[in-house]
């Protein structure tokens, strides 16, 4: 049985007064959300010129993610569908402006005015149909389409998401790309079930050169050079933050060492008198990445 909040009730019901308070007073949640928000801001790769930017926090909840934006010196608008979560944000005197709204209805914002957007642990909610009128694909489409329009060209949007399964991950990514975004998935700690976190990093329109040379893994392993044709867009970057860069790269390319190499090593080990499992058709076989 899954205990995912997304399947228990619609967000505006699930995040009621009690849940909003519980969520925001858990020091564990506060810490995790702050870390995720820091990482999202890092992936946003804003110019490092000391000028505050005007950002969006989508599914801002009680303002945990927004606080990280404020701490980094930027201004923000937070949108959330749960009045209870927003009330807690008001009590905590967050610095951003808050809007009660449903991202699935599209964002009512003028074109090209927003410098960047983050969304922490929220967008997977759009994959559920909570009302008979809800069609997840159309709601995602309305959301990404309106987000694309309100961002300034070259701006990024970074979403930390918890998709329930491969189908949800693909649905979200496909709708984002269809809206015109370029980009792909960045996975932190891919080998840890507990710490694994994924970020959808999207760029709006032509990519600025300053963004390409950014220091993060995204800039390095997924250079968005030249154009952004659709088939190039859906790239997946896997980065293990606690590993040195070199190792990461060989892992990522999935080259592995191959069956021959494994057999040779096993033979060597056998000769040394070690207890080595028998060879089989599985030996040295590439493992499926755990999606």
């Amino acid at each position, binding site marked *: 049985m899954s205990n995912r909040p997304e399947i228990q009730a619609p967000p505006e019901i699930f995040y009621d007064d009690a849940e909003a308070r519980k969520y925001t007073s858990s020091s564990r949640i506060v810490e995790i959300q702050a870390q995720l928000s820091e990482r999202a801001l890092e992936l946003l790769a804003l110019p490092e010129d000391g000028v505050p930017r*005007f950002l969006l926090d989508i599914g801002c909840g009680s303002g945990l993610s927004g606080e990280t934006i404020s701490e980094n010196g930027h201004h923000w*608008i937070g949108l959330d569908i749960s009045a209870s979560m927003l009330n807690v944000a008001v009590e905590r005197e967050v610095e951003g402006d*808050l809007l*009660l*709204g449903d991202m699935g209805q599209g964002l*009512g*914002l003028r074109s090209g005015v927003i410098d960047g957007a983050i969304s922490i642990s929220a967008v997977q909610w759009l994959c559920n149909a909570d009302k008979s009128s809800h069609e997840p694909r159309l709601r995602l489409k309305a959301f990404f389409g309106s987000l694309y329009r309100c961002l*300034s060209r070259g701006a990024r949007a970074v979403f930390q998401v918890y998709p329930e399964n491969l189908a949800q991950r693909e649905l979200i990514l496909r709708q984002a790309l269809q809206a015109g975004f370029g980009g792909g998935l960045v996975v932190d700690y891919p080998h840890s079930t507990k710490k694994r976190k994924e970020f959808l990093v999207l760029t709006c329109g032509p990519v600025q050169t300053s963004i390409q040379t950014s220091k993060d893994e995204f800039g390095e392993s997924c250079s968005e050079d030249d154009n952004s044709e659709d088939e190039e867009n859906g790239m997946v970057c896997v980065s293990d933050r606690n590993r040195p860069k070199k190792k990461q790269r060989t892992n990522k390319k999935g080259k592995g060492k191959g069956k021959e190499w494994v057999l040779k090593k096993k033979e060597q080990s056998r000769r040394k008198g070690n207890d080595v499992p028998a060879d089989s058709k599985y030996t040295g076989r590439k493992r499926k990445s755990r999606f």
Partner: protein
Amino acid sequence: MRLITHNMLSCNIKGVANGFPLLIEAGKVIEKEVDFNPDFLRHMFAKIEWKALVEGARSMGYAELPEDSPDATVLDSDESFLKKLHHALLELHLEEGALVCPETGRKFPVNKGIPNMLLHEDEV
């Protein structure tokens, strides 16, 4: 909600062609001090719809902004202008009241500083 946000916000109802700017019905307006940062104002200036800002500020009781959009050079030379812009954009908060769609007249209530922009099902 502050005027910087009001200046970006438009009515999202299906079929509405001109949902900007939302008219402000001010019930209660409060002021909160924010650190003055000219760089941010210069950065935002090009994105601001001036007329909407002037009218929005006026409906919130602040009439110090010049009627016509000033030339961008004042951003470097005129500190008193920057201070006014700063105050209008970032320090005035609409606490209670409503935002009204200029095309349909639909009211979006504002409570505790939060505009309720949720659409009804037949508006999506």
